[in-house]
């Protein structure tokens, strides 16, 4: 079922040489090919094992981590993948016949059904016993207590309302029972079935309550064991695990220390099982269950902060070893319609796993409170896989040999499995094709090659040297506040910039031959596929990351940046040989030219008119008319504009002036008129250049009016 269970594969193979102490479960029962020939000394094997770990440990850890994350916060569902279509139990047959008008009717009908279902059935729990391995066999401790008190709570997780920070949780106590501690499962269980404590959760509890919409129901088992010597558990684990690293030793010590600090009172173990998930699907069918219990630490972890991050070192926590190691609770679950019917409580058969000593390398269960979430999840997964197995078609005997190649493909180790579960993420692929496809697409840090085998299939596993481990996600996420790693709390929406491109390539018929080692084009296959928009842009002016929404705007427009305007103004301000009015006109004019980017002489007529148009109000307001006229005339002196332009520009100003003066009275206008006269008169005096001949003016103006190009050429020539 899971890669941790070596017993399924270990027996059929040359026995490993016990060096697997440090390895995690997957490689436990590996056999060195060379080792079969002679009896090599331990050192060689150790070295070989080191090489093996060096090659495969890191990617395996990463995939383990991703597996757990995908259980908690799935990014996609396997059943939606084409090659996993057999996992999809839904079909679209009804889709054709469905009508929108029927939707409400359907929903109402469905609700009615659900209610009747929940109304008719009560949940009956019959507890077989609470099992906790102690250092000593339980019969020695006759005088110790032989029962623990169990409290069963029904936890209702309600729908989050807008104002709520997190989902409101209601805990409904359903009862307290004394459950036998470590009952002798081998003898006389059947005889005493009637005496087992039993609990009934009435069906009313599963009905929707009015205040909150309940999202999911789960059972919370709380076992309190009075005076349980905690150190015993740790002591046992410590004793068994001789070659455990000192790190774990330290953890044990720490635990011991902390436990000694606490008063020798009750020890509480908790476990949680989902009854109805958030889609109101029944998760617990009738049957026998064994639940792994977790010791409750005194500091309950805030659910918000208990993310998957902390489970990282979960490799020392194989979920199934907790069943053979940790405290477990066995019970039988039944959905009954009759609440009084207790005598027919189903017979609890002893579970086989309980007392069968496996020769597994048991690890100290260094569980902390933060692990509980993971344990719960794996528990759920366990339940699911258990169900899956029941539902799956009768398994054909198919043996998969995983051949791990490492050290430049000079060495290899083989492990065999009898099922089609992915060894890294325990996903049941059910078909060889699906398994191979899954391995290739989901575990691209490795290269998988399929080799047909008389007994089943051989898969060569080697490290993908071409794997591109760089960040393939959305670069926007890195820059979002407060950082993607902290904010990710479940699936997140992609940014708006990501467009969905629909590509429908011609699908080849599924064939195992596509996994055979190909001679050419190997590189192509090993490359990871990256899709989506993975580029991040930055604002050119402040180096801040550009949001996708801002992409349409150009922050790089630099024809007249503010600083250049400011600089121009400041520089003109520093002139000492021009008066204030002239400075103002110069500033206005220079900014005007900068803004519109006039560069040629023949643009000057247009530039002047546009200037008069845009800045007339300012010029009039600051009484800069004469300064402007002076400017125009000196431009005329340089053969840049025609007299016609001067006229038009000044006419524009005068129009505005007269409008402005209209309110003030006519005196102003006269005054302005006078100003204008004086400006014209004073012009030759101010002009530092030798006076141009009036006749020349005319010629020039003619020229400019006739053809601007000629004028420009002439200017360049002179």
């Amino acid at each position, binding site marked *: 079922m899971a890669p941790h269970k070596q017993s399924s594969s270990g027996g059929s193979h040359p026995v490993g040489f016990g060096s697997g102490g440090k390895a995690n479960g997957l490689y436990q029962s590996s056999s060195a090919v060379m080792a079969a020939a002679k009896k090599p000394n331990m050192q060689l094997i150790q070295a070989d094992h080191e090489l093996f770990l060096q090659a495969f440990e890191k990617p395996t850890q990463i995939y383990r981590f991703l597996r757990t994350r995908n259980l908690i916060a799935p990014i996609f569902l396997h059943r939606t993948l084409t090659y996993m279509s057999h996992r999809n139990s839904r079909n679209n047959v009804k889709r054709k016949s469905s009508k929108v008008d029927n939707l409400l009717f359907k929903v109402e009908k469905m609700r009615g059904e659900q209610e009747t279902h929940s109304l008719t059935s009560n949940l009956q729990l019959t507890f077989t016993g609470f099992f906790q391995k102690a250092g000593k066999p339980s019969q020695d401790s006759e005088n110790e207590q032989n029962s623990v008190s169990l409290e069963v709570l029904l936890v209702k997780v309600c729908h989050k309302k807008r104002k709520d920070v997190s989902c409101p949780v209601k805990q409904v106590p359903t009862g307290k029972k004394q459950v036998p501690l470590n009952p002798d499962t081998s003898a006389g269980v059947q005889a005493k079935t009637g005496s087992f404590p039993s609990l009934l959760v009435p069906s009313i509890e599963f009905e929707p309550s009015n205040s909150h919409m309940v999202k999911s129901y789960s059972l919370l088992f709380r076992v309190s064991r009075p005076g349980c010597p905690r150190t015993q558990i740790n002591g046992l684990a410590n004793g068994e695990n001789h070659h455990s690293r000192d790190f774990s030793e330290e953890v044990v010590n720490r635990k011991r220390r902390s436990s000694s600090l606490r008063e020798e009172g009750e020890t509480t173990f908790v476990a949680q099982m989902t009854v109805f998930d958030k889609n109101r699907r029944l998760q617990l069918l009738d049957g026998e269950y064994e639940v792994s219990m977790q010791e409750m630490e005194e500091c309950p972890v805030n659910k918000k902060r208990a993310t998957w991050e902390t489970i990282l070192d979960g490799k020392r926590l194989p979920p199934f070893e907790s069943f053979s190691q940790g405290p477990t609770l066995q019970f039988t679950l039944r959905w009954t319609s009759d609440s009084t019917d207790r005598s027919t409580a189903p017979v609890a058969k002893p579970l086989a796993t309980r007392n069968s000593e496996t020769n597994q390398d048991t690890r100290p269960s260094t569980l902390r409170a933060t692990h509980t979430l993971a344990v719960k999840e794996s528990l759920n997964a366990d339940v699911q896989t258990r169900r899956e197995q029941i539902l799956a078609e009768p398994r054909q005997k198919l043996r998969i040999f995983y051949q791990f190649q490492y050290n430049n493909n000079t060495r290899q180790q083989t492990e065999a499995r009898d099922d089609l579960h992915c060894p890294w993420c325990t996903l049941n692929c059910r078909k060889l094709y699906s398994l191979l496809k899954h391995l290739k697409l989901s575990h691209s840090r490795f290269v998988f090659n399929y080799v047909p085998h008389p007994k089943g299939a051989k898969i060569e596993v080697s490290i993908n040297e071409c794997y591109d481990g760089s960040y393939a996600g959305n670069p926007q996420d890195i820059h979002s506040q407060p950082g993607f790693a902290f904010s990710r709390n479940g699936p997140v929406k992609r940014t708006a910039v990501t467009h969905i491109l629909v590509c429908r390539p011609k699908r080849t018929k599924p064939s195992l031959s596509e996994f055979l080692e190909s001679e050419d084009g190997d590189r192509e296959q090993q490359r990871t596929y990256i899709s989506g928009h993975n580029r991040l842009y930055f604002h050119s002016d402040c*180096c801040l990351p550009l949001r996708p929404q801002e992409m349409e705007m150009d922050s790089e427009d630099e024809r007249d940046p503010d*600083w250049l305007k400011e600089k121009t103004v400041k520089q003109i301000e520093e002139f000492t040989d021009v008066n204030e009015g002239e400075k103002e006109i110069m500033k206005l004019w220079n900014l005007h030219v900068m803004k519109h980017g006039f560069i040629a002489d023949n643009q000057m007529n247009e530039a002047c008119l546009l200037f008069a148009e845009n800045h007339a109000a300012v010029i009039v307001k600051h009484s800069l008319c004469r300064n402007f006229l002076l400017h125009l005339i000196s431009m005329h002196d340089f053969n840049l504009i025609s007299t016609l332009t001067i006229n038009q520009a000044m006419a524009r100003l005068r129009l505005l002036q007269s409008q402005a003066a209209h309110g003030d009275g006519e005196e102003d206008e006269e005054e302005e008129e006078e100003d204008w006269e004086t400006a014209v008169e004073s012009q030759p005096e101010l002009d530092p250049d030798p006076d141009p001949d009036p006749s020349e003016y005319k010629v020039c103006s003619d020229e400019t009016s006739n053809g601007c190009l000629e004028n420009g050429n002439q200017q360049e020539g002179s």
Partner: protein
Amino acid sequence: MRENKNMSESPSQAGKEIPAKKQKLSSDENSNPDLSGDENDDAVSVESGTNAERPDTPTNTANAPGRKSWGKGKWKSKKCRYSFKCVNSLRVTLYECHSQGEIRLLQSYVDADADENFYTCAWTYDTNTSHPLLAVAGSRGIIRVINHITMQCIKHYVGHGNAINELKFHPRDPNLLLSVSKDHALRLWNIQTDTLVAIFGGVEGHRDEVLSADFDLLGEKIMSCGMDHSLKLWRINSERMQKAIRGSYEYNPSKTNRPFVSQKIHFPDFSTRDIHRNYVDCVRWLGDLILSKSCENAIVCWKPGKMEDDIDHIKPNESNVTILGRFDYSQCDIWYMRFSMDFWQKMLALGNQVGKLYVWDLEVEDPHKAKCTTLTLPKCTSAIRQTSFSRDSSILIAVCDDASIWRWDRQR
């Protein structure tokens, strides 16, 4: 490696020289952490509590004068406790000063990037939750804001083109963060709305690394200094800046598709190169006067313009400066040595490169006659980069290049 883990007291030596003060040698963290997992890609990994058994591998031993490969630390008081913080290569460490001279390590944060080298830090508080916040920045030019209550890095700001040399919070607005950088510019951030309010630099800005900056008492202006030997004044009470600050509060990125337009202030409101002839590595306001130092063995007290000129009416092209006084000392001619003043601006402290600590009492009639006290210790012999007073100026913390922290308690 230096191993001054245990608090060793040597009151006898100290007592001989300065009877008024006693000293304590505190522990320090300069060990190389190896907890940076590669999974936390953009995060500051959090580590708290005392971890005495961490292996201490030397990380930064090369501290050639004039180069930055040391830890710089500073503290600020928080609530009723004295909690200070030391930034130290890639590690941010929070300590708490207790009475009786004890210094207790509270928390330590390590950047995930091994190349990070934190240079500076500043305290502020969250205006909503009143949590104290700590901003740190360093060689990578990324500002990180740490909430040490939730033990998380809550914000980070990318944008500076190079290392950040100093961080300062606005004295009246706890959301305005000023950062000065090796990229020749200063930036003003609004950490509530995560906006960049303004960039100070460019055409007439600093022509080399900006090393230090300070807000004046009312937070109306900023004085910055740098490697270009210049000191520049930037007013932020101008209409343009006030509008930008208001705009930064009103900006909501989820409501608009337009980016927040940062002000680019290219022209300082005053600039001078007449005070110092070398890198200006520290500047502080003292009322309307300015204290600044270069690596010339003197802190200069000066003001822009002529003696009678008002600081608020100084023209940008003003070329006069008036030097009012100097605080002389010796053996401090390497750069990146910061002096500090207490909250009440009555004490001024500076360490030199041989571990001597100069403390001036500014509470005298004539600033020229400010009393100078020299604090020395036989064990403290490396350059004291930074000093800091507690709010009631009873404790002085000095941080050395050899990654030791020294605490001086005032006894009168």
